[in-house]
């Protein structure tokens, strides 16, 4: 981004407030970070409005479209639940309901991260005309996708709570918490998960500029990713060194912590809290560097 400075000695005849911008070669492919962050902050409203308008454009003709956002993971959760219980050869009702609740909240949370990543991955290639015509921090485009994914994630929480309340009415023995103090950890878990997913969206958005099949490949990758995450299986099913699987997966600590808080009503473990923070930092630093250092290329490769 350009360095800016108010020009005090500009001629008075000019009917505008001049400002000086200097464009120079980037050092180590990176623009001056302070200037970049300032512009990013100044135009944050753009991300918000872009998310709002994109939502409006997609559901212009049907309000039912939004219902599918909740209905889709809900139905999928039932399918996975049937699959898991059938494979396990059935179980008692109370345990079965706990599994269903775990799959449901896990799937909602996983879908949030998946949407941030996959929508963000396409945000640059789809923002063609805007990128060719105007100078602004390109990170605002995947940010807009992340904001939109968050809005889509929010209504799934009351749906989850409603399912659990209904379940507890019909199966009083079901061992699922609804409200506990541990829920206070959810903003921390969600923020770290959002940052991790956003950092990964930055990586895939950049790759998608160079290789246009990245977003296609991503749809298969996220499916495998889901099976490798503690959504269809419980984190406590892993013992000993196998528990490493929970932490090498960037979404692992977030999904394990989500289950810990919502299902058991426990605060996340220390390992989960650290894992969440470490993955958020790694994703933001690597993703941020990878993306920003290649932003210049976007205008010539779109």
């Amino acid at each position: 981004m350009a360095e800016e400075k108010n020009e005090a000695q500009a001629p008075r005849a000019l009917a505008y407030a001049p400002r000086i911008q200097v464009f120079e070669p980037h050092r180590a492919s990176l623009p001056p970070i302070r200037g970049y962050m300032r512009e990013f902050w100044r135009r944050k409203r753009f991300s918000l409005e872009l998310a709002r308008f994109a939502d409006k454009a997609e559901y212009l003709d049907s309000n039912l479209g939004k219902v599918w956002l909740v209905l889709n993971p809900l139905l999928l959760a039932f399918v996975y639940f049937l699959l898991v219980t059938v494979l396990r050869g059935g179980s008692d009702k109370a345990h079965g309901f706990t599994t269903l609740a775990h799959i449901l909240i896990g799937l909602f949370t996983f879908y949030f991260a998946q949407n941030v990543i996959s929508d963000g991955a396409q945000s640059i290639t789809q923002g063609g005309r805007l990128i060719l015509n105007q100078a602004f921090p390109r990170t605002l485009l995947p940010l807009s996708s992340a904001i939109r994914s968050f809005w889509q994630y929010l209504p799934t929480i009351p749906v989850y709570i409603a399912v659990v309340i209904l379940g507890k009415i019909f199966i009083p023995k079901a061992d699922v918490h609804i409200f506990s103090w541990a829920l206070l950890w959810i903003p921390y878990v969600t923020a770290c998960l959002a940052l991790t997913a956003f950092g990964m969206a930055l990586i895939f958005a950049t790759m998608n500029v160079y290789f246009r099949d990245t977003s296609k490949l991503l749809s298969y990758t996220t499916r495998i990713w889901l099976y490798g995450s503690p959504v269809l299986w419980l984190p406590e099913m892993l013992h000993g060194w196998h528990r490493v699987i929970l932490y090498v997966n960037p979404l692992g600590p977030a999904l394990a912590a989500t289950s810990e808080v919502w299902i058991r009503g426990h605060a996340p473990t220390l390992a989960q809290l650290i894992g969440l923070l470490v993955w958020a930092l790694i994703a933001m630093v690597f993703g941020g560097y990878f993306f920003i250092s290649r932003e210049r290329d976007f205008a010539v490769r779109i």
Partner: protein
Amino acid sequence: MLIDMPDDLAVRIEDLSITYKINVDTKKTLKNAVMRASKGEKVRMRTVEAVKHMNLDIPHGSVLGIVGANGAGKSTLMRSIAGILPPSEGRITVNGKISTLLALGVGFNPALSGRDNIILGGLASGLSKEEIANKTDEIAKFADLPDGFIDMPVRTYSSGMYGRVAFAVAVAMTPDILLLDEALSAGDAAFKEKSFLRMRELVKEARTIVIVSHALQTVKDLCTHAIWMHKGEILAKGEPGAITEKYLEFLNVGTLPSNDEDF
């Protein structure tokens, strides 16, 4: 940092070079890259030297026309003045708020209304939502949009309407420096006259305009200065009439089709 910029200059370009790499493979896919890597081949890249060691001063209140053949580096130069494509070498100093019309069309989303698209474009360029919202009716009026069209999806617009709105947005933002890349071909004769008038008003207010155009008559009529770019370098600069004449000589006009003048 110390910025050495005379007050009367809108843009100063010093020893500017812009190079970038492009992938010349027909299939820009990960699959293709992996297949090539498995055969021990690299992805085919080409380095483009779009602008080479250019020096140029553009004073406030001037209209600079840039002429040159395709691939001369005109659009790259415009993008670098706009801050979209930072230099590889050298420096560009810009004194004032820039408005651009480099890729035709305001739209990002054809399903959204003209008003929504205008708001998004304005926000991206750093304006506040209120500032833009106040201007949308003025834009619709300037672009001669039929009643109510500003709130219709952009996909229902004719190509003329689309181009006129884009131009109206660019000038409505009261820029200090207006960059137009082949943007004057939208609209009929009446709209062209109107856009000329608006540009002259901007110049009277000491604002600056840079135009890239293949329509040499436009450059002659509107510009106060002109440059002729060829393969990333300035071949000639000076009075627009003389520059366009030299360029025409180079083009060997006799062999060109008569519809060269699109404006």
